[in-house]
């Protein structure tokens, strides 16, 4: 057990050190959600006749799920795996006793820390504009955590299968991500969606992340009121982790040689 823990910490620390050295990604992962929060917040305030504080309260969840966690946890974990494949450092990991579980957990931990930092940043800025947050902190935390697990799982699937080079990451995030973000209500309020699109959106995990967070932290709803979103996220997150693991094993079979 200790072996897995040490390995996980080593992988996570290495990823975070690399990101800190490059700085750019970390800075952009901070700037992007904040700018989306401000844009969404001021648009809501103006168009929905809300106070700035109330508008920020409703804009924060979608900014977090769509502009923060999506790019740092999904895009970031694809980039981590792809960069290992491109630099071929993954081959040295194959030679080493590092277990696949620790490798996955290390990536998950590193991106969770980034995701949690983004959560604090987004909500701190929203609070700065007077937004107040009701509902259970713990429940909101679990929703954020499930979102991160789901994103890292999807990142693993895409990073081990479709993305082979760094340039592929942007294409993949654009192709799969942006339509899902729009359909999940990350950039446009779901209330604007036609009925048919709304029915489709209910199969989109981003919709559930967004709705669950709005319900808990903006509307103060309890677990019993949001359990539909919660269970959907649970199933999706663990399905993605399972699939991510299978695809990682498949990549090992194909690439596990010098």
């Amino acid at each position, binding site marked *: 057990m200790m072996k897995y823990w040490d390995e996980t910490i080593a992988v996570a620390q*290495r990823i975070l050190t690399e990101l800190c050295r490059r700085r750019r990604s970390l800075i952009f992962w901070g700037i992007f959600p904040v700018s989306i929060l401000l844009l969404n917040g001021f648009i809501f305030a103006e168009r929905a006749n809300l106070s700035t504080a109330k508008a920020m309260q409703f804009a924060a969840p979608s900014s977090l799920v769509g502009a923060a966690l999506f790019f740092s946890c999904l895009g970031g974990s694809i980039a981590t795996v792809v960069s290992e494949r491109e630099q071929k*450092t993954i*081959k*040295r990991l194959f030679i080493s*006793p590092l277990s696949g579980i620790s490798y996955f957990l290390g990536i998950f931990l590193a991106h969770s820390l980034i995701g949690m930092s983004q959560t604090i940043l987004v909500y701190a800025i929203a609070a700065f504009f007077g937004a107040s947050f009701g509902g259970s902190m713990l429940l909101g935390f679990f929703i954020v955590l499930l979102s991160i697990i789901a994103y890292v799982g999807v990142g693993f699937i895409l990073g081990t299968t479709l993305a082979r080079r760094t340039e592929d990451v942007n294409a993949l995030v654009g192709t799969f991500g942006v339509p899902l973000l729009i359909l999940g209500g990350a950039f446009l309020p779901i209330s604007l969606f036609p009925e048919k699109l709304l029915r489709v959106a209910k199969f989109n995990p981003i919709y559930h992340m967004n709705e669950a967070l709005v319900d808990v932290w903006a509307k103060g709803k309890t677990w019993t009121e949001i359990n539909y979103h919660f269970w959907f996220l649970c199933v999706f997150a663990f399905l993605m982790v399972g699939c991510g693991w299978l695809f990682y094993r498949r990549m090992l079979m194909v690439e596990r040689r010098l």
Partner: protein
Amino acid sequence: MLEIKNLTKYYGKVKVLEDLNLYIQTGTIYGLLGPNGSGKTTTINLICNLLQADSGIIKINNQIVSDATKAWIGVATQENLLYKTLSCAENLDFYARIYGLKGKKRARQIKTSLTAVKLLERAKSPVETLSGGMQRRVNIAVALVHEPKLIILDEPTAGLDIETRYEIWELILNLKRQGMTVLLTTHLLDEAQRLCDRLCIIHHGKIIAEGSLSELRQLFPAQEIVLIKTEAETKAIAIAQQLGFLHRRYGGDLAFLLPYPLELKEIIALFDGIPLHSLTRQSVQLEHIYLEVTQNY
């Protein structure tokens, strides 16, 4: 240290290794030679337990290779597999942790490995700021950091300048002096000749020659080689054939294989009447043996 018995490996229906047998003694440098595609890398993959053999066994320290034996092997690949934005010490620290080293022992091993490759003073420099030769040395240090019993060096000097090559050679010989066992693959035959205690030449997945340099010299049909430059090559070849000397071409140069040593004046006398631009005597080198055995095979 390393024992390979009757190792056979197929990729699909293609047999890439056939009945390979090797034994590497502790504290020696063993050279694995062969043309591209001969099966060297497949052998390394099997030793590292990255591939499964179709038949045969590989033992390290009398234990059949498995994930458990990975910690006994250190591999320095031909490419520098390093995290470029991390410093030398951070790269070593990461791998030391992966191999389960902790606390003071980890710090000591990082220092020892960087000292071994003469990069202690650059410990905090990011890898991307180092020269190609220094990066290669960091790559070797990473292979040493967990104190492996067997070091596999896959073309450690490929693409390096001569000064760096000499530094790496010195490093490899130092590893041997410290009692480590080294498996070296290289296309540079002078490197193999200079460093290796024993050599193995693989071709089409089979061992075609194995032994020390003096043992391999027995496979060569001459004791000395004479290279000549002349416009009358046909005439020179005819004379040599009459005397029973074989001839070869080494990189365009005409060479005659002398089955017994001759004095210089005797050699010159052999080619009497032929306008010679130059005549060079050479002892039998590994490259001659290599070409002989791989071309005859």
